[in-house]
């Protein structure tokens, strides 16, 4: 018994500092990533209509441990600014895109958010730091279960995960101030637009699984009319000059 305790003690003495060291390294990497995102936003200011992201959004990104949302074997890349696989042919979005999307929907303190396409749960975790309550829907059952367990384990108590069809949104808790649709269907489902509050904002990334070609911001005006703003996440002017 004494030997076992001693062994456990030794193991903890070895393992705990290693874990702490890891966490410190992850925190430093996360800070570096934030600086990279800030720089990227400055470079794309003309397209995003903003020179910097909301401090609350940056704080949320600084607080959410992305390495907890990816596969163990990819942890070394957790704070690189790129998408990563999470299994089932799905990816965790690029942090820069997550930051910009979270900013575009302008989540006010106390807001209610709906996310369609939970994936790893990372975007929901970021939103949970910005909104009072986050509802997230995932259609792929094992992914949804994993995300639910992960979010609970990490203490994101204000995130509710449901496994099911995102087309109809979450009518019993609607309307929402903010909707993030990460798994875009062939069109914006009318039920989702219905569940968006007047004055509410919805964002959709459009492109392939690994490259976001454009971000579509859907705004519902007070009169119920819906408009979109299509933004490039990258500074690019198609015309290089020289024509009449």
């Amino acid at each position, binding site marked *: 018994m004494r030997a076992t305790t001693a062994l456990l003690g030794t193991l903890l003495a070895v393992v705990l500092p290693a874990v702490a060291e890891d966490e410190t390294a992850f925190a430093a990497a996360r800070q570096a990533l934030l600086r990279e995102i800030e720089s990227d936003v400055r470079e794309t200011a003309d397209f995003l209509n903003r020179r910097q992201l909301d401090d609350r959004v940056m704080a949320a990104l600084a607080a959410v441990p992305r390495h907890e949302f990816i596969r163990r074997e990819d942890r070394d890349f957790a704070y690189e600014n790129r998408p990563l696989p999470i299994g089932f*042919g799905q990816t965790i979005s690029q942090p820069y*895109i997550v930051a910009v999307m979270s900013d575009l929907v302008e989540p006010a303190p106390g807001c209610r958010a709906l996310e369609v396409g939970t994936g790893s749960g990372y975007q929901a975790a970021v939103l949970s730091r910005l909104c009072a309550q986050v509802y997230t829907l995932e259609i792929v059952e094992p992914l949804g279960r994993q995300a639910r367990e992960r979010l609970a384990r990490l203490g994101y108590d204000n995130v509710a995960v449901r496994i099911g*069809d995102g087309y109809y949104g979450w009518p019993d808790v609607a309307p929402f101030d903010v909707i993030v649709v990460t798994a875009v269907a062939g*069109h914006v489902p009318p039920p989702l637009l219905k569940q968006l509050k007047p004055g509410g904002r919805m964002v959709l990334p459009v492109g392939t699984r690994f490259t976001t*070609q454009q971000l579509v911001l859907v705004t519902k005006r007070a009169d119920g009319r819906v408009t979109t703003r*299509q933004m*490039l*996440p990258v500074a*690019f002017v198609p015309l290089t000059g020289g024509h009449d």
Partner: protein
Amino acid sequence: MTDAALRPPIVSVALLSFATLATEILLTRLFAVVHWHHFAYMIISLALLGFGASGTFLALVHRRLLRRFAASYLGNTLAFAACVIASPLLARAMPFQAEALLWDPRQPLWLVLVFLLLSMPFFFAANAIGLALILHRDRVGRVYAADLVGAGLGSLAVLAALYGLWPEEVLRAIAAAGLLAVCVGALELRARRSAWIGAAAVALVAVLALPATWLRFEPGPYKALSQALLVAGTRVVVERSSPLGHISVIESRRVPLRVAPGMSLGATSEPPPQLGIFTDGDNLQPVTAASKDPTSLAFLAQTTSALAYLVATPRTVLVLGAGGGLEILRARRLGARQVDAVEINPQVAALLRTEFRDYTGGLLDDPAVALHVGDPRGFLAARERRYDLVQMSLTGGGGGGGLGGLNEDYLHTVEAFRLYLRHLEPDGFLSITRWAQVPPRDTLKLVATLLAALEADGVTDAARRLVLIRGWQTTTLLVKNGAVTPQEVQLIRATCDELSFDVAWFPGIQPAEVNVYNELPEPWYYDGVRALLGEGRDGFIASYGYDIRPATDDRPYFQNFFRWRVLAEAWHAKGRGGMALLEAGYLLLAGTLVLALLAGLVLILLPLALYAPLAQTSRALRWQVFTYFTAIGLAFLFVEIAFLQKLVLLVHHPTVAFALVLATCLIAAGAGSAWSSRIQRTRARRALFVAVVAVVLLGVTLNVVFDALMVRLADAPTVSRVLSGAGLLAPLAFCMGMPFPLALRAIDPPLVPWAWGINGCASVVSAVLATLLAVEVGFSVVLWIALGLYIIAFAASSFTERGPTCQT
């Protein structure tokens, strides 16, 4: 009796070559299911470097292998047959995913392993054929003829087989053909017949005993089909396969599919349930369920592609690309009295007519609907009928370009649009819907291409005939056969206002009207159309960040927008999603070319360093041989590819044209090769001169003749068009079959395997280079370059006069 005294194993070589070409075509098909189409193409292209590697290998060890020719030949043939099955299965087992190249540093290693594994069958086949060529150099014309004729028949056979059999069954059949080559070879070479035939029989039993499920190639995890199948309750209900693609139809009872691209944000109703037709695991097309509830079909009038029905009342409609029938349904629901629809894939058409007849509520039983199977251009070229509306379906599951960018597309060219416009009634509309890309690419290229078509038809008021609207997801361009009226403009304005679509062009449009509901950083579409309609069109096209030059039949790459200048910007912005700016198809092809060139160079230089007898030949001779065999290796495929473009337009079917060109070129070239063996060695150079002059003259003549033939035979039966195409191409190919054997028998033995390797490497580079050249400068230039290469080859052929100075 020694091996050398035996006759060459002609039938066996033909069978082996038959199986080798069939393997090449089948592997491209199999891997197109697993990976993106262009990645599959890249993998198989590079795997063909097995031919080049064989040249290097033979240069180093051919003398040892020739001492036991029969065993070497038959052993390599048996290894080929084994690799036909083993290589793709092992390659599939590698944890390689093209998408994972973005994050996984181990992926390049897996990719190299995939290349190496897939190159194995080609390596062994080339070893066997190369050994036969080296040993029977005096009869090289006959051996090479067997090689070419076998390959030609193989291309025909595999394409025919893919229409009737599942790819996994074709894989078994090809392995069996390889094993038959072993048996026939053993008989022809009179070598330990019972042992070789026994071994082949055992291998055949093993091939037949493999469970079919092992041989199936499933889509990769990032394909749309794999994603759809992750949803609980979703299953594949029907599968079909043909050279045009592997079709999988899915049904999802719990979470029905709802594909309504471009649906207005103002739409309030949900589309009815749908089935999804996937081709090679991507390119989703919906089959919409019959519905008695009119609100569920309201979406048909709430997309940008419905515009023509909302501003006019088209009675007769032609749908180009019927797919799952969405546009047919739209046409009937929105008032069309007669709908003709054209679908190129007979299996898709058959599914709509049979399996899904009840599901669609008998959409095709409607007497007002006629579905025609065939190529849309072929359909129109053979008819005079005019329509109130010609509607081009929106195909595919995402933005254009990207990995689909380098498929030849003869439906979106200046010539194609002229044909569509000719079939419009006065005041009729041509309607084309595209995915809206940001920044705009294909819609502006569409406008540029249509303007070129209108100008070619002598239209001077194009600005008054065009209408362009857009939602956040799709754009729709209308071209009217006449001027758009003020009443129509009012209807366009009202429709867009009601459905929150933006107007981007109509006659009299004001800048204040644009970029309202779906706001872009700049009114790119309006500015683009205005610039294209203005005097500075050429400058605008030249300075635009993407290639939006009008697509033509000579450069039929409507969906390729790549420009090198974007690469630097995209790379700089890669952390901010800059890669989305790139057209991956073009880059993959360019990357394939670079890899093929580097690998080819290594394979060609290696024997020089390691094989002393080769290094001892004169430097000048080596340069001549290198230039000659590179030139004819490049030129043969250049000519094939240039005339494939002509044949596609003549026979109006990509698969038939592909089979026809390949088979005609290879078989006729085989005949030319066989005939060349009658020519005395001392007359080789003169014969070469005649062959090259004939190739150049025939090439120039046929380039013109084919264009005339396309017009003359537009409404002729398919058989006449196929026979005319083959008949015209055959004499050219006959002459193209002569330069290789004429030169091979004239060179010293150490140079023979080297030349064989050079030819193999050049062939690999050729296919990739021809496509890149066609994208940039067009197929005509590819043909001129090919003819120039034949002239260069002749200029480098003085070694054929001298003949070999020593024997094997």
